[in-house]
Every structure is written in C-alpha cells, then in structure tokens.
C-alpha cells in the first residue's frame, strides 16, 4: 500500500493511502473525540463530534470517514473546530435525560466524558425533549431512549456482528428513535439477548436487567444456602472494572471477593464446562459412530441457540442436546450437591456470574429444571459483580489470592478455555481424541482452532477417521456456516458456535470499554491470551481427568450420556418465528 505525507496540526506523518484523518491523527499522537464511530463497524460520520479543519476544504469534515491524501493539512484543535464540537454536544445534552448521578453509566459514559473534555455547559440549550419510553420487555435488557444519542452503534453491532438486525432508527427528524419493526417491544422480536448493543452503547440508554437485589436478599436470608460460580471468561474481564489493564487474570482475587460478599459456596462454572465436555464429547462420538445428525453444533451459547431457533428452526437437530455449562452447573447443584448436603434444593440458591446477558434469558427457558425448579436462580454480569464488590467496600486490588471450594470448584484447563472462541472445540478434542483413539493426542494444544478470527476450520485424524471441525464466533459468521449446513454443503462433523465475536471474553456482560479503547486495543485477543496462559500453566488440562467430575459420575450420574445424565444435563429446543 502506498504511503502519503500529511500534516496533522503541522506535525508531518506518513500513513497508508486511504487512512482516515482519525487514523492519521492517532499516528501523530492526537486523539480526536468521537461519539458514533466504532472502527470497522459504525463508520457513518453522523454525530459530527470528530469534525476537523482541512486546509482548502469548504467546511469542517468528519475525521472518522474522511480519507487523507498527499499533502493534506489537517487541524484538529482550532477555535472553529472546538466551537463546533462543543455546540454539537451541547445540543445532544439539551435532549438528554441528565440523570447522571444515578445512571448506571455514571463515570463510564462517553457523552459525559465528551461534555467534560469539550467544556460543555449542560443546559446551554433548553427546549422540548423527544418523547421516550422505556422498553423492559425482556428478562435481560432495558432500553431507555431518554438517554439515547442516536449514534446507531447498537444498530451497527446488531447487524454487522450478529446479522440479527432487530433494532434500527424509526421515524425521522426530532421523532427519530431506535426501536424495532412496527414498534414491537424487543421481547417480541428475534433479539437473541447477546448484549453486544449494551457494550457498544456510549451512554446509559442500554443496560442489563440487574439481579443484584435478589442475590443480596438471598445472602441475607439465613434459611438459604447461596452458591456462586463464575464463568471461565469472568476472571479475565473483572479486573478492568477496577482499573487493571486489559488481559489481567484476577481469578484468585475474584474467589476472595465472592467469599467476602457472603456466598456460602464459592464454586466455578469451569466445573460445569468440564461436565459439558463429558456429555457433549460422548454425544459427538455417539453421533459419529451411529450415523447421527452431523455436523453436531455446540449449544453453550444461549444467544446462539436462540438465533438458531429463530433463523434456522429446521436445523435444530444439529444442536447438541447438552445444556450449557451454566445450566449443567446449576442442575448438578440442585440435584447432586443438595443431596450431598442432605437439604431441600429449594433452599439452595444458585447464582452465576456471566460475561453474558443471554444467560438471564437462558435460565428462564423450559427444560432447564433438573430438580423440578429452575437450575439457576440468578445470573449476574461481570459489571453487576463489580458493582456488588464496590458497594461492599471491598478494596479489590488488595485482596489475597484464594481458591475455589471443592468439589464443584475443581476444574481443568479444558473447562477454562471455554471462555475464548475455539475453546470448547479444543476442550472437546482433548477428550474425544483420547476416548476414540485410546491414547493421548500428539499435542494437547489444538492451536488450529485458536485465535480471534471469525471462522476457523481444521481437520484431525481420529484412528483413521478424518474429523473436520469448524469454529465460528459472531452470529453473522454463524449465519454463513448455517447457510451451508442448510444447503447440505458444510463439510464438517463438529461445529462450535459462540454468539459474540471472539467468544465469551468479548461477551455482552463484560466490562464496557469506551470506543477509544475498543478502536485501539485488541480487547478480545488480550483477554483470550490470559485464559490460554493460565491453561498452559495448569497440571490438570483435560476434562475427563478432573477428579471431581469422575466422582460426580461415580456417585450420582452413572455413565456420560446415561439416563440420569440425560435427565439432569440435557435439554430441548423450540422452533421460533423470525417476526
């Protein structure tokens, strides 16, 4: 690619031809403020916050979409530029519900930060506000359009990442608002609950349905025993809520924090992940050897499952019947563990911490109640956990490193890597290879399925039988694979699908990072690396070697895929409409 010479505020820089002003300015060490811009996802030049002066240009230009060319001179910080940006943000503020002090995004709001950085007056323009109502029609998400700035970042991720596209701008002019087709509540649409819109939102217009109150009440209820467990990827996201760099693994501190919050048992969903491998691996081998429906597709990601039900209701046979790790964990708590404690499962409250908002939906599904009551009582996001820790006054970075409790807190590296795209596939291969071939795989690392790219394929030799696998993350990628599956042209035996790009490390329940961090940091890559680093350092790296899993089968479940296991750990799916 050819290089061009440009000057940013008189600083000469060389950048690739076709770069935008914003990218060139970054090279010159200048940060141009943005609001609607999300690199590669939402490049529409709509909000006009990033305007700059270009020598010779008729008017101010939007730096996020304006390409540089040879000899261009850009000024990012003139009075004219500053006045324009300031007026733009002040106009946004004039139609904004400035409920900042009690807003869920207080201190992590891009509009608030812009207002501060640009020196805006919060009530420069006062006038009529657009009418906005709150959509609380789902068990996972709240939309409050009184805080919406119409940047369309949520709309862009819903379509580009997920190909779900159930939200968009309706109406025009002052009445424009983000909503669904025919103004349907979100809960009546094909929304999958992934929460990518929440982590893309610059303001408090979108947030999860919080369950903190219920969790706290359970902890304070002396008649309840409260179990907590966090998903694999939570330990590599949580630290960011406390100012740590992206990719910090805070597993030990997290265990300590959970104990200090008053939970009775501090377990780990990684155990549920190991259990998933036992069941899913067995199911795959069974399908492979008995002419079952192939390719088999993983069912760990509830937003993916719902996506499949809405968009590929004729392909549900491909889904593994296994519950997700969260649901398996809950099911085992309320059956096996309650039995072990000799207590009524109704007095056991199971809480999970998830990088995910769709988990809040998943726990409400039918056929997720092994003990006749819901497997999971509360599923909170990483953000909700961080809020609880802050409310409790726990100084997170000073916490000691602690361990999880036995037996449901014992896990292998295979369970841990579920948190990144390709992790379930690798974990399954570690076990399936040994079960089928009867000896250890040449390498425990199946590196072909690692990495943050959206679609990965590989082929492995299992005792003379070639097994072709595919790993997809981001539902837009899943759709491509599923179109092939439907057409009968997908050359795969086993497919892993995760809803969020990069897998759970980049889930909709993870800490919300500003557009600047998203645009300039490989968030999902760094978080995934932290997970793989921990896996590498572990002695126990295969699900079927987890002693707690063996004990669970010996004492309670019997054989993987057996009748008890089937009752407790497997589920059903339903065909859903697209509209």
């Amino acid at each position: 690619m050819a290089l061009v010479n440009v000057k940013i505020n008189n600083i000469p820089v060389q950048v690739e031809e076709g770069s935008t002003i914003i990218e060139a300015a970054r090279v010159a060490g200048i940060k141009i403020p943005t609001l609607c811009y999300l690199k590669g996802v939402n490049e529409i030049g709509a909000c006009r916050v990033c305007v700059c002066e270009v020598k010779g240009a008729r008017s101010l230009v939007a730096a996020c979409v304006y390409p540089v060319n040879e000899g261009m001179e850009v000024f990012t910080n003139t009075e004219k530029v500053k006045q324009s940006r300031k007026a733009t943000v002040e106009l946004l503020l004039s139609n904004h519900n400035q409920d900042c002090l009690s807003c869920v995004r207080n201190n992590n709001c891009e509009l608030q930060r812009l207002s501060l950085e640009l020196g805006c007056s919060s009530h420069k323009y006062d006038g009529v506000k657009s009418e906005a109502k709150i959509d609380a029609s789902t068990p996972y998400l709240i939309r409050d359009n009184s805080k919406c700035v119409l940047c369309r970042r949520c709309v862009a991720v819903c379509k580009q990442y997920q190909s779900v596209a159930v939200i968009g701008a309706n109406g025009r002019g002052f009445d424009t608002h983000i909503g669904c087709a025919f103004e349907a509540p979100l809960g009546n649409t094909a929304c999958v609950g992934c929460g990518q819109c929440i982590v893309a939102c610059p303001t408090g217009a979108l947030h999860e349905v919080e369950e903190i109150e219920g969790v706290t009440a359970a902890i304070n209820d002396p008649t309840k025993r409260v179990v907590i467990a966090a998903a694999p990827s939570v330990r590599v996201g949580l630290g960011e809520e406390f100012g740590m760099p992206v990719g910090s693994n805070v597993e030990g501190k997290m265990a300590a924090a959970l104990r200090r919050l008053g939970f009775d048992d501090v377990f780990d969903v990684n155990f549920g992940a190991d259990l998933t491998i036992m069941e899913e691996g067995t199911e795959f081998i069974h399908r492979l050897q008995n002419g079952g429906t192939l390719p088999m597709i993983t069912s760990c990601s509830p937003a993916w499952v719902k996506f499949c039900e809405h968009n590929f209701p004729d392909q549900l046979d491909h889904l593994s019947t296994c519950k997700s790790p969260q649901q398996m964990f809950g099911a085992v708590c309320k059956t096996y563990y309650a039995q072990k404690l000799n207590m009524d499962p109704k007095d056991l409250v199971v809480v999970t911490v998830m990088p995910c908002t769709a988990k809040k939906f998943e726990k409400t599904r039918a056929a997720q109640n092994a003990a006749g009551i819901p497997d999971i009582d509360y599923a909170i996001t990483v953000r909700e956990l961080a809020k609880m820790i802050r409310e409790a006054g726990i100084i997170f970075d000073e916490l000691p490193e602690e361990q999880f409790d036995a037996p449901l807190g014992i896990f292998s590296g295979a369970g841990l890597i579920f948190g990144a795209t390709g992790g379930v596939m690798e974990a399954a291969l570690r076990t399936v290879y040994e079960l089928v071939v009867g000896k250890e795989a040449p390498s425990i690392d199946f590196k072909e399925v690692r990495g943050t790219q959206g679609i990965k394929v590989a082929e492995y030799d299992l005792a003379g039988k070639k097994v072709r696998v595919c790993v997809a993350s981001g539902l837009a990628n899943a759709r491509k694979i599923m179109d092939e599956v439907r057409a009968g042209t997908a050359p795969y035996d086993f497919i892993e699908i995760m809803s969020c790009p990069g897998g759970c490390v980049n889930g909709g329940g993870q800490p919300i990072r500003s557009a600047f961090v998203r645009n300039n940091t490989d968030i999902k890559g760094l978080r995934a690396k932290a997970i793989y680093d921990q896996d590498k350092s572990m002695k126990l790296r295969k699900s079927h070697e987890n002693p707690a899993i063996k004990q669970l089968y010996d004492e309670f479940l019997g054989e993987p895929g057996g009748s008890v296991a089937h009752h407790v750990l497997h589920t059903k799916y339903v065909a859903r409409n697209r509209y």
Partner: protein
Amino acid sequence: MSKIKLTTVTFKGTAEQETQLRQVLTEIKQSEHPSVMTALQRAQEIYGYLPIEVQSIIADYMGVSLEEVFGVATFYAQFTLNPKGEYAFGVCLGTACYVKGSGDIQAKLEECLNLHDGETSPDGKYSIAATRCVGCCGLAPVMVVNKEVYGKLTVKDVPDIVAKYKAM
C-alpha cells in the same frame, strides 16, 4: 414516542395482490440497483399502504431485516402504514382554510370519528388525513370525503356530515 401510526385494520390482501407483489419484487431484485425504497413504492401502489404482512415479504426478498424495511418506511413521508378508509376524510389545512378555522374543523372531526390524524378506524371504514390546499379557497374552510367536497364549513356542520357517512 413518535408520530408513527400503526394500523389496527385487519389485513385484507388478496392472492392476486401477493402474486403481483412477488413479481414486482423479483423484477426489482434483478434490476441494476435493487433498493428497499423502490420495493416499498411499488408495494404501496399495489396495496395502498404498507402493513407488516407486506413489509415482511419485502424484507425476505430484499435480504434485509424487517426493521430495516420499517426504518425506511417510517422515514419518508410518502409511505403510509395505514390503509385509506372506505370513507377517507381530509380537512384542508392550507393557508386560506386554516385562517378560516379549519384547525377547529379538524379537531371536531377527530372527536366525532374518535381517530387521530393519519389513523384509520379498526373496521377500515373511516380514515382522517389532513390535506394541503385542494384548490377551492373560495369555499374555505373545506373538507373532502372521497370525492365529495364540503365548503364554507362551521364546526357545527361536522357531526351531521359524519352521521351521513355512518348511516351509509
């Protein structure tokens, strides 16, 4: 929340209309620049309005989501989500009629029909859509019902006119 008027009228599209729509959409898809907007325009020519049943077919053909179609349909004033009633009432809100009090006529009409501007009664019989100058300012204020013109109106005349159509 918005000025978007959703219809409460039951969809009465015919098989012929659907065949025609599918044919038109196939043509549009094969054209050089297939666009949702063109599809909506042609669909409105066929049905007179753009209910969910029609927009869903457009979404499927054009390979976009229903919301993307709806977003376009609610952006442009040329599209309507409501069918015209069997009796379509239009009060002129042009300058001459307006200064002669057509705003009050409109308000009375909305009250008599229990509809807001841009809406159609659930049975599909009556609709109200304010119009611009109909070209007979000498008769201001003017109301048009289908092709019938009522001029030099007073608010008191409105209930009688409505009653006449209710009796039909």
